[in-house]
């Protein structure tokens, strides 16, 4: 027996969940395509975990409809949904062995014990833990526990696999490795996966699509690249990667492009539907180039702080358009604090942000 994915889509139709007066999820519409890994990303309290628990059936929506595949599961209790979940704390049952943990879902759904254990062995092998079945969860390292939790969810061959911040209890190095493993497993099995995290780098690394949430609503959704290059608003621009938000002026429109003036520079950028007048510009820190001394066609500024970080240098620059945060990969000739500099902008990494 091998574990196969039976991927299904997940659809939310105007789903609202409130706890008393507090609205945790407000009239959300979303579709998660079969076989995709979609990340719910946002600051704490934005409603991303509630959204995940709504898919699982651990919460019932106050209003709206939830579909998995073509089936309306809105009122279906958690037990009867074909969904499994990897918890932030892993939630391994401390009184059962690793094998019993992984076989649990199969046993309670009535499979013969031998068959369930064989499938569980299979699942453990899939995550590289064959031979660990007899141990108690407490006898495994954090990373191993995490993989047991994944195996336990996988062996049920769910239509949708859910991850609730699965890496937050691991140290930084392990986190990177485990997230690659999760991504590989998901792709090789073709699972529909919903992944909750508050770490934007993690989201960028694993996702087919990212849904950024704020205040119980979806702020923006799109591919990692869409989100980074064309954030929908200041919040997304600031949340995905770092961004300097600078006030600029749209002087005119030329086709789809806008002529933008900022601190004496003139740029041609996609207008993104904005009209001439004042506008907000998001500038990625790596899109700013600094040169010592003053130059024509550049914004004058002064370095107020320079921090050496091994593979790059971070600067704070006081300039005519405000304080700028700059990341510079040239570590050989750092610019000392107090130096007068000229600031220029690259073509990429600068975008107009709709208000």
């Amino acid at each position: 027996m091998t574990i196969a994915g039976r991927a299904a889509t997940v659809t939310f139709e105007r789903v609202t969940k409130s706890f008393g007066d507090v609205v945790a999820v407000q009239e959300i519409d979303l579709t998660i395509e079969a076989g995709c890994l979609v990340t719910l990303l946002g600051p704490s309290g934005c409603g991303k975990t509630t959204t995940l628990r709504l898919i699982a059936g651990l919460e019932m929506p106050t209003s709206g409809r939830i579909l998995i595949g073509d089936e309306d599961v809105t009122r279906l209790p958690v037990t009867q949904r074909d969904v499994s979940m990897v918890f932030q704390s892993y939630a391994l049952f401390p009184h059962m062995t690793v094998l019993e943990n992984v076989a649990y879902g199969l046993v309670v759904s009535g499979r013969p014990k031998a068959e369930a254990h064989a499938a569980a062995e299979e699942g453990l092998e899939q995550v590289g833990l064959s031979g660990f079945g007899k141990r108690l969860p407490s006898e495994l390292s954090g990373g191993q526990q995490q993989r047991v939790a994944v195996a336990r969810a996988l062996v049920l061959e769910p239509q949708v696999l859910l991850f609730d911040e699965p890496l937050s209890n691991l140290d930084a190095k392990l986190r990177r490795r485990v997230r690659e493993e999760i991504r590989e497993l998901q792709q090789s099995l073709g699972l529909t996966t919903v992944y909750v995290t508050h770490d934007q780098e993690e989201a960028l690394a694993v996702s087919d699509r990212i849904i950024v949430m704020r205040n119980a609503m979806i702020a923006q959704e799109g591919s990692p690249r869409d989100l980074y290059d064309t954030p929908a608003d200041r919040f997304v621009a600031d949340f995905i990667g770092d961004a300097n938000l600078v006030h600029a002026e749209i002087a005119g429109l030329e086709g789809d492009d806008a002529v933008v003036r900022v601190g004496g520079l003139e740029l041609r950028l996609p207008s993104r539907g904005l009209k001439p007048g004042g506008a907000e510009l998001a500038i990625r820190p790596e899109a700013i180039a600094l040169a010592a001394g003053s130059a024509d066609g550049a914004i004058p500024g002064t370095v107020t702080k320079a921090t050496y970080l091994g593979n790059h240098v971070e600067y704070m620059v006081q300039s005519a358009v405000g304080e700028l945060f700059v990341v510079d990969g040239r570590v050989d000739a750092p610019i000392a604090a107090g130096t007068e500099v000229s600031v220029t902008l690259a073509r990429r990494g600068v975008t107009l942000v709709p208000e």
Partner: protein
Amino acid sequence: MTRVIGLWLALGAVGYAILPWYAIEDGFWSFLWLVDGWPQDRDYAPAIVQITAHGRVWLAPLLLFLAAPLAVIRRERGDRVLAATLIAAGAGGLGWLLLQGFAIGIRGWEFATFEALFGPLGDRQFGMGYGALVLAACFLFLVTQGLAARGAVNGDGFVVGAIGLVIALVTAFILFPVSRILVSALRDNDGALAPGLFLDKITDRTIWGIDCLYGALSCGAAWNSLILALLTGAGTTLLGLAFALIATRTRFRAKRLLRVLTVLPIITPPFVIGLSVILLFGRSGAVSQFLDWSLGIEPTRWIYGLPGIWFAQMLAFTPIAFLVLIGVVEGVSPSMEEAAQTLRADAWKTFTTVSLPLMRPGLANAFLIGFIESMADFGNPLVLGGNFDVLSTEIFFAIVGAQHDQGRAAVLALVLLTFTLSAFFAQRRWLGRRSYATMTGKGDAGIPVALPSRLNWLVYGTALPWALLTAIIYCMIMFGGFVEIWGRDHSFTLRHYAEAFSITTGAGGLVWSGAAWNSFWTTITIATVAAPLTAAIGLLTAYVLVRQRFAGKDAFEFGTMLSFAIPGTVIGVSYILAFNVPPIELTGTGAILVLCFIFRNMPVGVRAGIAAMSQIDSSLDEASLTLGAGSFATVRRVVLPLLRPAIVAALVFSFVRAMTAISAVIFLVSANYDMATSYIIGRVENGDYGLAISYSSILILVMLAAISLVQLTVGQRRVFRGAEGSPAPGAARGVA
């Protein structure tokens, strides 16, 4: 879903058509009826035969409610009609069951309106039996299944059923009996409504009189109880604080011994303290005799009355205050005190301006618990009361004494209930959950600041002599049983033990000829039956409270905790008033004792369960649910195994409390079912101290053995790193 409904309907049908409808006179476990005329006999017939053969037509509509769900059983779950039908049928059935139960009394119609409508009945009500019980359960779970089908608690039938069951039980065995007190208080002894008489009784001189302020007479029982409770609350709080400070803030070497103190109130029947106080300070007490011999001070009866009761209650309840306060004192973060010291406060200033204010909620809590305990205490006032009447004993004498005035007992119970409930409400409103929060907080780094030296001496000076006194008292209990006649003839004897616990060999082998065996085995049996039931319902309630969200949860929690605040005497009176007559006829049976223990001790199980369950992360349940296990399977496979220590703790505490209880029990015992405590009290009243004391010490030893056994088994459970919970500290705290 429909399978579960079908199952309940089938059970309901069995209850209606097969099992005897009315209670069997020979007892719940007697099955003689099977061969004694069932199913035709009038006493044993099931409902359906009662209607056809014996003309009890009022049972017929029940069939309608039982059959109604059959029409919709094929429908999908989540179907509105299914849900509505189930709820209507279940509620209607329950309603009709209650209506016929209460409308028909032991003398025909209860209400004149029915008499006028239907004419005289010519029949009477009997206690409900197996059939009625099963059918009532069937209707109850039809309602909960209907509510679940409508989406209550995420549509979880098991959880809704559990909530429904607990609510039904608490209503039947706490709220209903207590409400009967109110009804009885408003009626005269013939059952007629008499508000005037009620006013007379409640303003009676023996309750509210203040003669003691200016005359030689004593004050009313209400004032006496109040004064005693205030004194005891204040005294136990101060002493408890002294002990708590010693245990946590000094270098006292025998701290572990102090912890032993905390076990004492759990295993000591409350009146035993009073008894040993008599052995020390009574007219023939050891201390009195010594003073007479050495200084020529004539022994008097000063110990009988307020001083004696207060003294005994202080001894009995200080450990409880200690138990509450040690958590509070430990909860005061050392870093707060260190902060105060770095801000130039000396030890005394730190204590008075930082530590003490932080303990304030805990002190208030301890005071209120002492207050409630003192109010509810029955054993010590009974033994030491003299002419000092308090409410709890007055209630007893109103029922069993020459007065035999149930109305007066009800009125007194009402006054007592008002006092304790006010204290209970004050505790909850005023303190909320604040006092608990300090106990559970994570330990801050830092070393507790040593006490200022004046306080240090004060604390030692009060606590250590008191501890010594406690030790002496327990020595008295252990050795008092071995002397001939206390105070007169101190020669060693085993006479009392022999009288109580002798075993002789007779014609039929061993004969348990000792006087105490009967009550001893009854006590053990009843406690053994009650303990698992108490633990089960307590833990089920705890599970629902900790893990589920539902409308009305606060009220639910309040209801389950309420019996903490209801003094045992009040429960005892209320059970007599409520269960002496049909439809629930229980007096004189063992069942009433078991039920009384279950609902008196339920809060202990609930607290133990809550404490343990809060330590198990709820993601474990959720993981089990997402893996396809239903709520019931989750409880069985995940929650229960992890709760094992709490289960054991709840079992033991309910067992032990059932053995030490006296206040409610004394109303409910009967010739067939006499309990150890009430037997001992009887001996004390006859002045037979030797036997009483020896029996008490045997009880204490049995309970000590039970507790140690549990400590051993709990210690041996499968150990795992990380998720190990401490064995239900809340259980010990739940003594009230």
